[in-house]
Structures are given as structure tokens and as C-alpha cells.
């Protein structure tokens, strides 16, 4: 697709490895781990995984009360990340309400913590008399998107995608298409999620959460590694300001990278298990959308979460398309799986790699699983020329998503 060119002019990040883009990129370069044992998970009966990648030092009080009262943690993260993206882009305040700026930010669910709090009180006497006015605004499926639009006075299109682990990859992709079609000049897009024991339990009941490393948290997860035993759940938010190239150039904005390809597909082979062919099809569609061949890709940022089946399937799909010619890494070993935020946070890191001309290795990848071989795994950071990056996210529910960005300087 080549209508209006779409560029990245701002990035905001609230993550287990820092609460802005620069810190995230620095911590990934250092090979840091954002994973720790979460004491509160010990108290949950039947939960075997006690690891989590949580965000730290977020000061919600900096948000005015009237905006904050309708926000759960995920909306707080999304708001702060959105503000960072607008600030980085030096986006004019007076254009927030022009109707030319939209919001496309999603989450896996509405706030589970708020839901739990409500029902704890409700089940005391089945009374709704103590239900406060802000409850619904934290429970609704478009809580993050609506809260960001309301609190920043954004009057364009508001869309709240929900596709579990592929949420923010889809959000960025659909925002790219809306701008390319000229429907909006700019869109704040991405995802957010807040950690709740239910998040961890969702993977634990499927035997897909890491349970063997509770006493050595920084050893998990291990994408593509022989010892990997599942996902480590996380939280956070990643938000991009995408903008038409014309808009960015007109106002003299610094362009960080360009979005050039996007595809999202449905894998109907299973609601929970990945299919190699479906993954391959999604990546090939994104390449076609970008009018690129596999040889044009300089680096692949894999979804690879550290699960048994998922990593093998993605490695096989990558091997089929790229053989061992393109460096591949997953950032889940550093960041855990930040769910709806993962696509955007990891794409933010990919922009960092593009800017630094330096690729970040897969953390905790020591012994490559035989079934994940045949692709060019990055086990150490590498300095090398990189201008085009392909990023995958694959979600439960059979949602596949691939996005391709490239360095703007190449044009």
C-alpha cells in the first residue's frame, strides 16, 4: 500500500524497564531484566507462576483528579505514554482539538482490578448503593482510548482495539492505514495493560506460564531457549504518534522512522495454539503491503514469548521465509510479556535499534532449542547497518499481526 506516507514522530513508554523511551532503549542495550518475583502472587491459590514484569515509580497524582477518577492503572499508563509521545513530537497543543488527531489505543480487557474491587463489595450484600460514578469508565472496553482522548482534549477518531497480545501491533497498523487513507493527519496509537493475577493464571492454566524460575527471576523467560518453560506476564504501555509525512514535514517535526507495511490475519486452526502457515501468511502479506522481499529485511523483532509451541512455530515460519539470513531476537527475556502493550513497547525498542544501528540480543537465550534452529538468533548485541525491521505479534484468539518500519533517512 502506498498512499500517503506515514511516519513516527513521537514515542511514549511506561515499561518494566523504565518509564520513557530513552530509558527503555538504554536498559535493553545493557541487557537488564525487568522481571521479579511478585509476593502478592504467592497468596493466590493454585497459581504456580510467581514471576511478573511490573512497572515502577509511576506517579498517577500528576494527572488532574477529574481525569484520574475515571482511570485504572492501564489508563494512567496510556495517558502518561501518550503525553510523552506528543511531547517528543513537539505536537502543537492547539491541534489536539482540531479533529485531525485521533486515538487508537487498546487493552486486553477493561480493568480486572476495578472489577474485582467492585464485586468484592457487591457480594457483601448484593447492593449497588456504594457504586461510584467512575466505575464504568474503568471497566469499559475502550477505557484507555477514551480516557486519553478525554484528558488530552483530542477530538478526532477514537478506536479501541482489543486483540490480546496483538493489540498494540494492530492499533499501530490500523492507525497507519487510517492516516495513509487521509482520514486523520495524526493518531496516537498503541496499547496498555495492568497486571492482575488473572493475567498470570490465564497462561498458568494452559501450562504456558513460567514456573521453574520463581527463585531466579532474571533467568526467565527464555525465548527460543531449550530450558524455556513459558511466559512471564507484565504490564505497561507503549504509544506512538503516527503522522502523515506531509503533516510532519509541514511543521518541521523530527521523523524517527517510517511505517511501510502491515498485515493482520486470523488463524482459525485453534483459538489457543499457533499455526506455522498462518504466521507465515501474515508476514508475507506485510512484506507485500510494503512492496518488499525477505531480502530487504535487516532485522526481525520476534513475538517469541518463551512458550513451548509458540516459539517453535514462529521459528519455523521465520525459517521458511528468511532461512538464516536475517538476525532475529525477542525482547521478552528482558521485558516479559507486557500483553496489549508488548507490540508498541517492542516496536519502540526496534526504533531505538534503528537509530543506534545496534541490535539487541534475546536475553536468556543460552542453548537454542533444536526445533528453533535454522534462523539467525542474536545471542549478543550487534552493531550493524539496519534500515528495515519486521515485527511480529501473535495473540490468543488466533490473531496474527506483522508490522514493518524503516529508517526515514533511506528515502
Amino acid at each position, binding site marked *: 500500500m502506498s498512499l500517503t506516507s506515514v511516519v513516527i514522530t513521537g514515542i511514549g513508554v511506561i515499561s518494566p524497564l523504565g518509564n520513557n523511551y530513552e530509558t527503555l532503549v538504554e536498559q535493553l542495550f545493557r541487557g537488564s531484566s525487568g522481571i521479579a518475583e511478585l509476593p502478592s502472587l504467592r497468596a493466590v491459590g493454585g497459581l504456580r507462576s510467581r514471576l511478573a514484569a511490573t512497572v515502577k515509580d509511576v506517579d498517577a497524582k500528576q494527572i488532574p*483528579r*477529574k481525569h484520574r*477518577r475515571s482511570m485504572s492503572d492501564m489508563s494512567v499508563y496510556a495517558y502518561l505514554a501518550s503525553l510523552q509521545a506528543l511531547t517528543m513530537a513537539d505536537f502543537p497543543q492547539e491541534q489536539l482539538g482540531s479533529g485531525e488527531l485521533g486515538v487508537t489505543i487498546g487493552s486486553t480487557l477493561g480493568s480486572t482490578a476495578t472489577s474485582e474491587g467492585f464485586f468484592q463489595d457487591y457480594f457483601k450484600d448484593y447492593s449497588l*448503593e*456504594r*457504586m*461510584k*460514578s*467512575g466505575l464504568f469508565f474503568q471497566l469499559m472496553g475502550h477505557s484507555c482510548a477514551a480516557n486519553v482522548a478525554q484528558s488530552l482534549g483530542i477530538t478526532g477518531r477514537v478506536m479501541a482495539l482489543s486483540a490480546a497480545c496483538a493489540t498494540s501491533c494492530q492499533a499501530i497498523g490500523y492507525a497507519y492505514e487510517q492516516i495513509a487513507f487521509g482520514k486523520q493527519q495524526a493518531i496516537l496509537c498503541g496499547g496498555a495493560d495492568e497486571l492482575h493475577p488473572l493475567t498470570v493464571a490465564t497462561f498458568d492454566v494452559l501450562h504456558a506460564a513460567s514456573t521453574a524460575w520463581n527463585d531466579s527471576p532474571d533467568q526467565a523467560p527464555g525465548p527460543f531457549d531449550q530450558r524455556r518453560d513459558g511466559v512471564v506476564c507484565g504490564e505497561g504501555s507503549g504509544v506512538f504518534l503516527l503522522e502523515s509525512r506531509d503533516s510532519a514535514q509541514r511543521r518541521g517535526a523530527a521523523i524517527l522512522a517510517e511505517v511501510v507495511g502491515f498485515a493482520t490475519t486470523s488463524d482459525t486452526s485453534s483459538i489457543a495454539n499457533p499455526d506455522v502457515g498462518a504466521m507465515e501468511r501474515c508476514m508475507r502479506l506485510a512484506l507485500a503491503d510494503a512492496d518488499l522481499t525477505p531480502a530487504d529485511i535487516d532485522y526481525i523483532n520476534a513475538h517469541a514469548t518463551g512458550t513451548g509451541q509458540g516459539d517453535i512455530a514462529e521459528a519455523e515460519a521465520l525459517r521458511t521465509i528468511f532461512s538464516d539470513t536475517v538476525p532475529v531476537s525477542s525482547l521478552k527475556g528482558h521485558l516479559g510479556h507486557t500483553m496489549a502493550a508488548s507490540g508498541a513497547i517492542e516496536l519502540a525498542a526496534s526504533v531505538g535499534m534503528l537509530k543506534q544501528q545496534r541490535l539487541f540480543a534475546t536475553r536468556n537465550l543460552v542453548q537454542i532449542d533444536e526445533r528453533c534452529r535454522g534462523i539467525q538468533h542474536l545471542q549478543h548485541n550487534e552493531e550493524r547497518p539496519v534500515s528495515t525491521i519486521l515485527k511480529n505479534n501473535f495473540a490468543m484468539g488466533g490473531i496474527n499481526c506483522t508490522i514493518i518500519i524503516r529508517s526515514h533517512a533511506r528515502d
Partner: protein
Amino acid sequence: MTEQEVIELIDSSLAEEFELEREAMTPEANIYEDLGLDSLDTVDMVIVLEGAFKFKIREEEAVRGIRTLGDIHRFVLSKMEQQS
């Protein structure tokens, strides 16, 4: 509870819920113009007062006429008097 204790409980409950500066909480303060509350806040104000004083006031007509903090003081004191 003494009248002063009732007023203190009202003011401290509202200050906590709506993050109000105690210096601004004079009896003459208009809850909308001076204290910055809005229609959603008044829904929560009723719940906060019901929780603090263990009475039911949501359906009372007089609640709709409240404009100042002093109106709230008088309304609650009157309600407490009816109950005693």
C-alpha cells in the same frame, strides 16, 4: 456526635474523596464554582456521606438543592437530628 464533630467528619470525608484543600472548605464555598465539583462528583458525594454517616439520602429531594458546603453541613445535621 457533637455538631462540630459532624462538620469535621463531613469536611474530612469530602477532602479525602475530592482531594480538596481544607483552607478552601469554608461554609460559604460553592461546591461547584469554588470547590470544583461536577455532576459526577455529586453522585460520589452522596455515597461518601452515606458511608460516613450510615444513612440513605440518595432519593432525598433536598440533596438536589445543595450548593454550598454550608448547605451540606445543615442537611446532614438535620438528617442526624431526624434520626436521633
